[in-house]
């Protein structure tokens, strides 16, 4: 559906070949193509604008203008900038789970973004890879059968779930979860919350109250990688109410280009920690900024080629 960026840029630079060095005007023309590619990948417009400005400044530098393959150089620079932005230029710090137990991890996000599934995936990851004793609790009293869903996932992953007591509020369930975890010697307690829209004041206040009552060590925003331009508003709305510490990007097994990732990293200022890559409970991967950058640009191997050259 999308023309690949390298194809489009190739066109521009083909026309220029033989004219020798590239001018600033040529670079800006190429950057206009990059801009469209980013927008088609659902990178948020304000992110795109600032990004293109920054990448243009770099590309106008001498390397590109003197290069024999200027088009590929431009792509490489854009790719490098993307990777930097996606990773924040630093390694992802480990999850804060080695605190006085139980460590509390709270999952938040829009309706249907993948919180409950990601809760079970992360619990299973912590159980098998980190050898932690994990308890999961669903605080979702809104969606029909939400608590039942987590209970079933607990059975499938062999992770303990907090017994369901009908009639409790989310804050009461959260407090009970922490209490039980402490008494029963769990290392980590994962709190799955109901989905909510940023504009829903009552639900946003409820989320803040849960965080206030349990003082989580990690608050992870679970975001669908199919998200469009609204991603910036989503990130900003959640960040405004709770102290986010990271992002999980779900449905990376789809064919969306995943531009929302860029918005998430920029607006939350927190690392993207994991990518959900399927409905199965082992489909969770550490987030790979390099791979996602290539995907957002819609180009395969060009970066690798330039690096080798």
């Amino acid at each position, binding site marked *: 559906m999308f023309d690949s960026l390298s194809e489009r840029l190739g066109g521009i630079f083909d026309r220029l070949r033989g004219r020798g060095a590239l001018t600033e005007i040529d670079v800006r023309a190429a950057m206009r193509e990059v801009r469209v590619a980013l927008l088609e990948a659902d990178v948020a417009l304000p992110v795109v604008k*600032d990004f293109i400005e920054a990448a243009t400044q770099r590309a106008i530098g001498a390397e590109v203008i003197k290069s024999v393959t200027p088009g590929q150089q431009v792509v490489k620079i854009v790719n490098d900038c993307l990777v930097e932005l996606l990773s924040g230029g630093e390694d992802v710090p480990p999850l804060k789970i080695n605190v006085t137990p139980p460590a509390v991890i709270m999952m938040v996000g829009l309706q249907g973004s993948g919180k409950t599934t990601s809760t079970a995936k992360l619990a299973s990851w912590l159980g098998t890879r980190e050898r932690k004793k994990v308890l999961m609790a669903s605080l979702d009293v809104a969606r029909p059968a939400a608590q039942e869903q987590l209970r079933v996932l607990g059975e499938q992953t062999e992770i303990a779930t907090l017994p369901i007591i009908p009639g409790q509020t989310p804050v009461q369930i959260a407090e009970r979860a922490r209490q039980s975890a402490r008494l029963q010697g769990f290392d980590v307690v994962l709190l799955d919350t109901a989905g909510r829209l940023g504009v829903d004041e009552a639900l946003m206040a409820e989320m803040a109250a849960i965080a206030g009552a349990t003082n989580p060590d990690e608050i992870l925003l679970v975001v*669908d990688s199919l998200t469009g331009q609204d991603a910036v508003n989503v990130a900003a709305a959640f960040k405004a109410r709770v102290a986010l510490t990271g992002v999980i990007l779900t449905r990376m097994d789809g064919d969306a280009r995943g531009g929302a990732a860029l918005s998430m990293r920029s*607006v939350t200022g927190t690392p993207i920690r994991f990518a959900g890559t399927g*409905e199965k409970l082992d489909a969770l991967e550490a987030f790979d900024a390099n791979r996602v950058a290539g995907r957002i640009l819609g180009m395969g191997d060009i970066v690798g080629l330039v690096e080798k050259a």
Partner: protein
Amino acid sequence: MSWFGRLTEGLSKSTKKLANNITGLATGTLPLDEERLDAIEEGLIAADLGPRVAARIRERLADQKYAKGIDDDGVRAVVADEVAQILAPVARPLAIIRKPQVILVVGVNGSGKTTTIAKLARLFKADGKQVMLAAGDTFRAAAIAQLKIWADRVGVPIVAGDQGGDAASLAFDAVKRAMDEGIDVLIIDTAGRLQNKTGLMDELAKVKRVIGKLDPAAPHDVLLVLDATTGQNALNQIEVFGQVAGVTGLVMTKLDGSARGGMLVAAAEKFGLPIHAIGVGEGMDDLQPFTPQDFAAALVGTA
């Protein structure tokens, strides 16, 4: 400060500016010059219309008509009008004209299929129809329990099997029962699936085929449920679900609160599929008819 540090800082400012979507640059009556056209185009992109459709609408506005000048409200009205014109042909409620009318509900994971089924059931029941649901999501944990709770709340019968069962044979049984029991509307839930998963898409095609054995015209409607927060990937969803399951109409969910769902405009231009209704909340009464004028007004910020 690093360049991406500055970027992050600048972001909240530009986000706020774009929150108004189509915001003009001046208060008085001015020609629709390049700068104002740029602002309009960007507003449309920020509303998920996609760069190509945004450029096309910009072109339509760029003709000489407004060379003499137009104020901000005028600009918004003109843009809203353009958008409404694109959407007008696709606004069409779902009509119940068969007995039983079989409605298959499909879409990617978490888009709002099951909740939309509850809302539709509620709507048809209020209209005096005999409604039945079928719990065709035999995959996701507690998906059957979720639809059962909705069936209870709405007060309609449900055909359900066990988790892990065969979705196609459940759908077959449900259609048969609906025929035998003189039901007016049967709505079949399906598991969420991403359109690039060919195995899962083949299963969906099978569900459809099996239903067709009982009534070659069934399913009479195949509704694709789209999440309003989705970006340009919605176009792929429409295309592939269309090819595999023969989508006949769209429902867009999660439109409560903020103006999103701009990719519907791109979708209307590209596919022309009917948009039957929109979801505006998590409750069973939160379904509304799709009205192009209101939708366009919300999108450009005149609502």
